Every structure is written in C-alpha cells, then in structure tokens.
C-alpha cells in the first residue's frame, strides 16, 4: 500500500494529542497546509483501507475496566474454527494465532473483574479448552504510539 504525504504526516503526528477543539481537522489542515476536507477525506480513506482502526482514545486498561491476556492450545487444523468462536465474544478485542503450543492469543476486556471472570469461563466452555490466563501485573511501557517508517516520501497524490 502506498501512502501520500498527508497520510504519512497524520499517522506519524497524531497518534496522540489529537486536538480537543471545535474544528480539530481544520487545525490539522492548517498545520499541514491543506484543506479541512482533504484531512477528512484522507482519514476516511485510511479508515476504508483498514489502516485506521479508529480515531479516538486508548484507555488505560487498569482504570477503564478489567482486562487480561489469555491463550488456548488448539490443534493446528482446528484453529480457524476456535478463533471464530472466540471472536464471537463481544469481550474480545485482539485475537492472534501465534507460533507456540499455546497458539491462539487474545485479549479479553470487561467492565468489571466479575464480568471478566465470567467471560473467561464462558470462553473455556464454548471452546472446550483450558484457558491460560495472564493478567498484567505491572506495566513498564504502555505507550502504543509508534513511529512508522514509510518508504521514501512519494509526491502527494491529490
């Protein structure tokens, strides 16, 4: 996927500190010397491409509710089916296949610890798997913003 200059600027400048004012996209537009509509169109395109998951908050898990990393070990030829069962739980936000005996790794979030425990029990029942539960005990680095190294900057395509 190629990214025009404005996409690159938005991605690398605004993973944090998005303006809190009545016309935030206008503020970005002025900074980058483009129109407000160009900023909106670019973001909509990124959204449509799936590059932009959303424009909004990343919550501090510990303050916002209850969450944990969890894993199950499933036969390789059954992983898509089990992943689908797990995905169907509303409490799942990340779900990855990984190379290990525990080959399906997911993050479960819930409003309260009780809801979280219930969700984990339900997932165990629905998948007939023993769930490895690995809650965060201490965070040493929680900043998810990430500088993206783009290939040499392309001429802006308008």
């Amino acid at each position, binding site marked *: 996927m190629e990214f025009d200059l404005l996409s690159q600027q*938005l*991605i690398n400048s605004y*993973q*944090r500190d998005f303006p*809190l004012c009545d*016309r935030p*996209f206008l503020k970005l537009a002025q900074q980058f010397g483009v129109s*407000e509509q160009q900023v*909106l169109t670019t973001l*909509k395109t*990124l*959204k449509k*491409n*799936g*590059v*932009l*998951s*959303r*424009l*909004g*908050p*990343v*919550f*501090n*898990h510990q303050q*916002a*509710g209850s*969450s944990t*990393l969890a894993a199950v070990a499933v036969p390789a030829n059954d992983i898509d089916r089990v992943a689908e069962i*797990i*995905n169907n739980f509303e*409490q799942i*936000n*990340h*779900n*990855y*296949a*990984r190379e*290990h005996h525990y080959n399906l*790794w997911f*993050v479960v*979030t819930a409003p*309260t610890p009780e*809801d979280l425990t219930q969700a984990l029990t339900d997932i165990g029942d629905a998948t007939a798997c023993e769930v*490895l539960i*690995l*809650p*965060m*005990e*201490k*965070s*040493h*680095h*929680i*900043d*998810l*913003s*990430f500088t*993206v*190294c783009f290939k040499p900057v392309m001429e802006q395509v308008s």
Partner: protein
Amino acid sequence: MMTLSADQQAGLFAAIEQGLPLVERPYLALAEQLAISEMAVISTIESWQTQGLIRRFGLVVRHRKLGYQANAMVVWDIAAEDTERVADLLAKEEVVTLCYERPRVLPHWRYNLFCMIHGKSREQVLKQLADICQRHQLNKITKNVLFSTKAYKQRGGRYAATANGA
C-alpha cells in the same frame, strides 16, 4: 465547568471508544447524539486525559496494514530480582512497543515478562532482538519468540457496560 451526570459520562465513554465521527465538528456530533454540550464533551475528554483514564487520544492504526507484518511477542523467564532491571531496559528500546509483567502459570507457562516488537519482516525483528540481547547482555535469560501468523481480530477494548454497545 464539567457537569455531566454519571449516565452522561458513561454515554460519552461508550461513544468515543467507538471512535470520533469523521465530520468537521466531531465533538458537536457526539454532543448532539448525547444531548449534552460540545464544551462538555471536550472538557470531559480533557479531564479523562489528565486523570490518566485515557492514555492517548488520536489515530489508532493497524500495524499490519502499514507494512509491519511481523509482530513478535517475546516472552522471558526472569528471576524476580532481575525482572525490574531487564524490563526497564527493554521498555526503553525504540522497537519495543509494550513491556508487561504477567504471572507464571506453572507447569504450563514459565515466562513472566512480555514485550512486543513490531517489524517489517521476521528477519528484521529477530535481528533487532539479537541486537538488544547483545547490548544488554541478556543472552543467558531463557526466552521465547512467538510470531503471530494471523490476526483474527484487532480493535480497541470495549469497556462500556451497555448491552447494546456492539
């Protein structure tokens, strides 16, 4: 200034965790949806940031779609007295995006420190990891690298307790 009721705050929380609408006045759009003022939306989000409930506010991107196909969860089995020191070293590394302590679950799971490294290829990630281990003399620590092979789901956490918040 901020006079939202608990219900209104819960409503705003549920609305923004889905992401801002991509319109000229996104906070006004949320305000109208929740029947509160634009100013209340902005000042409430501001206060959540100040309180640390919101860790960051902005574009949440999918690494894979940006060419960062290799995503490795590196897990370490570190003695208790060494964990803090190593974790802090790892956390300072540019390529490490997360660094968490988690419990061991013996006998199934022996690793107590987790970090995430994103890269454009498996080779690049392994090279970065080897470099980190060498610079900080971490080669003696038992570790394992779990590359992801498929993302079945990747989205923000949903904490709002609304039953219809799907």
